[in-house]
């Protein structure tokens, strides 16, 4: 029997679906709340050696990253890996990883002051999109149509107390055909299904009420997602892509996928596929362990 820990911030719909999927495989994961944890870098808490795999499902990106650093130090196997999470948690790191792999993405700039950012946006051209480097659910995304709007957004960002908002990530705006983008669900490099997300708003997040419809997984999508998965270290990933005249481009990659709205339109049991992947890693870890002893 595999021993699985699932670390959560809150139990969302996804955590319940995952829990049920584990139970269908005859496994009762231990649910652990990140709020309760205290990490000592000098010694591993023996509770963690009980598990064949630790499945990170924290809502909090920073908690997840520190937990992964800790597990990495003690060689506790995790889903996703520290490397993958580190890249995907940050939009600029993701952009760099994709660029290194030669994969298509919108134009991106990173700048440190409002003035240099304005220059960069001016070069990219309007409209452009300003985003927090770490963020999700469409939070604080700003589409700026002209220099006046860009100035205003940057001034507001500077007054936000959090230093993270004082590093400015800019992307060229992609005019999405049919007001939609693509969300692909990728496990170990395989795109198991995808949805179109459409909205009358330029932000097409399902967390913001966009409509989800099945998107057939063609060769271009499968191939691009496979290479993007390799570029960021693999694992369980949700990739956002845009359709352009030159083909698909990658917008961002999420390492803590939400999928509640995608099961019905795609007809794919996403939870069981995620769980089977986690269990295959656990199995592999067990085998590696028994080979060493």
């Amino acid at each position: 029997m595999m021993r699985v820990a699932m670390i959560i911030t809150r139990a969302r719909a996804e955590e319940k679906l995952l829990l049920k999927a584990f139970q269908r495989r005859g496994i009762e994961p231990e649910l652990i709340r990140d709020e309760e944890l205290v990490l000592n870098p000098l010694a591993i808490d023996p509770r963690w050696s009980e598990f064949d795999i630790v499945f990170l499902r924290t809502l909090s990106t920073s908690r997840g990253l520190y937990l992964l650093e800790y597990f990495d130090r003690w060689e506790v196997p995790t889903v996703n890996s520290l490397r993958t999470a580190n890249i995907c948690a940050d939009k600029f790191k993701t952009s760099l990883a994709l660029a290194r792999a030669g994969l298509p993405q919108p134009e991106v700039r990173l700048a440190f002051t409002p003035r240099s950012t304005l220059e960069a946006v001016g070069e990219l051209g309007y409209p452009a999109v300003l985003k927090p480097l770490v963020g999700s659910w469409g939070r604080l995304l700003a589409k700026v149509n002209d220099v006046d709007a860009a100035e205003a957004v940057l001034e507001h960002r500077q007054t936000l107390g959090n230093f993270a908002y004082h590093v400015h990530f800019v992307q060229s705006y992609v005019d999405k055909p049919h007001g939609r983008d693509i969300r692909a669900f990728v496990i170990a490099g395989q795109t198991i299904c995808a949805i179109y997300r459409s909205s009358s708003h330029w932000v097409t997040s399902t967390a913001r009420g966009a409509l989800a419809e099945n998107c057939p997984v063609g060769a271009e999508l499968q191939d691009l997602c496979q290479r993007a998965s390799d570029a960021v270290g693999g694992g369980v990933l949700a990739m956002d892509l845009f359709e352009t005249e030159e083909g698909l481009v990658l917008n961002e990659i999420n390492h803590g996928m939400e999928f509640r709205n995608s099961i019905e339109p795609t007809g794919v049991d996403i939870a069981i596929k995620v769980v089977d992947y986690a269990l295959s890693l656990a199995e592999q870890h067990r085998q590696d362990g028994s080979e060493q002893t």
Partner: protein
Amino acid sequence: MSEIVCTECGAELRLDDDVIQNEILPCPDCGVELEVMSLNPFQVALAPEVEEDWGE
């Protein structure tokens, strides 16, 4: 199936049998998010505010 009372507005919420610890239950009346703090006895509290680094 059990029932609880919304800590914010007093509405009665009916719960599914598969409810789990730390699940978030939106109140159908006032829309507030309640977090399941314990199953036995059944207790809910206002869910913590979403933080800036929460998400996928």
